């Protein structure tokens, strides 16, 4: 089946909506659209960042996931205490593969889990004493940590514990920053609010720590915001920036440290990769420290070259030459990769359903490989993300916001893409449907995908998923027609 035209896509949406009860149907209709590049604003066509309907299988996470898992977790020398019952902390530990350089348990704490393990008595009598005791314990066991953050889970907000007071008291006692983060899971409609809350917590508790004490900084100082170093992404980005002559002062938050956060106010430009989760702090720094910020995209050689040139345009000629030099150096290598994989991937169709950024950011990388994105959607994007998405996607592409399990399955069944890129919750459902799948949240245990080095891995992984011989063996032998030729091993 070829890609849908506008009428077919609209008919498909109507068909999928048919199973819902009247009220749910009306609500879900607002979250599905067919792309129209002529639109200037997505607002009239798609509603986003709204509460999911009870009863559907949403793929979203909670505010705690956005705060502890996404923003705070990757800072390597900050110990994040999951304050509340044990499960939230345990299940948000290490699964995202945000790499760091350091020694676990000595100076880096990304893949360790600290929890106050709330019991019934803590809910009844309050958990503040327990938190104070826990901070003391953390401090005596891991004295080389540079800061502690208290990530609240749902009960903390429900019983009204005063974690701010405990944090202030303990911070004075141990002489380190203790940051209370009010990211109770029930806040907001998705993990997106957790990102916002964490950005605000960094703004209120950390970033002004060295105000007035920072040196002026070099003319080429930049910070990478919103790169979580998944499978080494931030490192693959950083080397390109350094190669063109920039000085990367801070990585937020993959492989980042609290010293880097405190040093960020001296940079000349904030580079924002994940707009959705870190635009808040970039806006704050723009207002308070007059640091301009820009979004960039390091997926696929076309977008990388565009981004490098745009980054360089904020600086003088040495950087501009540096950018051209970097692009010229890597272009032949990228051409070799495209020459190798494009014939194998040409014309393949992809459907994406990821968090708040990648469905639009990875479009360029897929197009570099000759592939086409036929459907894209976000779990927790806001309107401004859809405004940007409309421009990046082809006309008549299916766009879905906070898609339910049923909708996704039905879209995939009808559109029959050659690859689906989504999260772990969707992965096995689509495997069982016989559709090649890449887990696009943590790169399916691979990576990096950012930067030129990342594109090589990206191309190989996509080829590996789509052209895997196992998909030809999908039909059980007894379900094949009797005269079908025996498939040869590839």
């Amino acid at each position, binding site marked *: 089946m070829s890609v849908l035209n506008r009428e077919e896509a609209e008919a498909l949406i109507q068909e999928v909506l048919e199973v819902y009860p009247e009220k749910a149907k009306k609500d879900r209709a607002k979250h599905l659209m067919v792309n129209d590049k002529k639109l200037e*604003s997505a607002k009239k066509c798609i509603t986003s*960042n709204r509460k999911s309907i009870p009863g559907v299988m949403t793929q979203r996470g909670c505010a705690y996931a956005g705060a502890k898992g996404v923003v705070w977790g990757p800072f390597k020398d900050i110990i994040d205490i999951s304050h509340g019952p044990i499960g939230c902390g345990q299940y948000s530990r290490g699964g995202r593969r945000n790499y760091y350089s350091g020694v676990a348990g000595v100076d880096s704490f990304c893949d360790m889990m600290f929890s106050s393990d709330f019991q019934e008595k803590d809910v009844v009598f309050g958990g503040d004493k327990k938190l104070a005791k826990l901070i003391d314990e953390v401090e005596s066991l891991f004295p080389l940590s540079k800061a502690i953050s208290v990530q609240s889970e749902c009960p903390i907000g429900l019983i009204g514990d005063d974690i701010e007071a405990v944090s202030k008291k303990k911070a004075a006692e141990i002489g380190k920053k203790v940051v209370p983060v009010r990211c109770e899971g029930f806040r907001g409609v998705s993990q997106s609010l957790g990102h*916002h809350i964490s950005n605000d917590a960094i703004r209120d508790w950390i970033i002004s720590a060295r105000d007035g004490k920072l040196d002026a900084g070099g003319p080429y100082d930049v910070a990478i915001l919103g790169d979580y170093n998944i499978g080494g992404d931030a490192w693959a980005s950083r080397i390109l920036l350094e190669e063109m002559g920039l000085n990367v002062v801070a990585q937020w938050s993959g492989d980042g440290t609290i010293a880097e956060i405190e040093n960020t106010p001296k940079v000349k430009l904030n580079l924002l990769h994940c707009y959705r989760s870190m635009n808040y702090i970039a*806006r704050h720094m*723009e*207002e308070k420290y*007059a640091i301009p910020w820009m979004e960039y995209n390091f997926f696929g050689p076309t977008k990388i070259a565009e981004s490098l040139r745009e980054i360089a345009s904020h600086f003088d000629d040495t950087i501009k030459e540096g950018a051209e030099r970097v692009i010229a150096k890597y272009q032949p290598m990228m051409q070799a990769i495209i020459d190798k994989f494009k014939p194998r991937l040409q014309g393949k169709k992809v459907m994406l359903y990821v968090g708040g950024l990648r469905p639009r950011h990875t479009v360029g990388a897929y197009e570099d490989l000759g592939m086409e994105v036929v459907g894209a959607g976000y779990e927790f994007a806001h309107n401004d993300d859809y405004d940007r998405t409309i421009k990046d996607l082809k006309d008549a592409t299916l766009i879905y916001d906070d898609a339910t399990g049923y909708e996704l399955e039905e879209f995939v069944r009808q559109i029959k893409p050659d690859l689906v890129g989504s999260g772990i919750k969707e992965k096995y459902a689509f495997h069982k449907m016989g559709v090649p799948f890449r887990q696009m949240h943590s790169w399916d245990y691979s990576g990096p995908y950012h930067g030129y080095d990342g594109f090589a891995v990206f191309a190989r992984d996509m080829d590996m998923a789509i052209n895997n011989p196992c998909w030809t063996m999908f039909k059980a032998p007894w379900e094949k027609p009797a005269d079908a030729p025996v498939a040869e091993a590839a």
Partner: protein
Amino acid sequence: MANIMIRKSEQGYVFYMPKRDIEDSIVSMEFDTPEKWGGEIKLGNGGLYYIEPQAAPARLPYSVRAKRIDGVE
């Protein structure tokens, strides 16, 4: 009343409300001189807000309290 942040882009002023995460262009602002700045502001999405008229800020972006008169939220 809510805090909003006003930035300058190539196209003109941009309205941003952190609480609701609404970002939109400002199509018109009642007063836009160095001495008197603010008043009624109209957004690209049709929303209408009011900023107490004041001296123009020395530097943008600038956070200010705004009242919603007729807003798309």
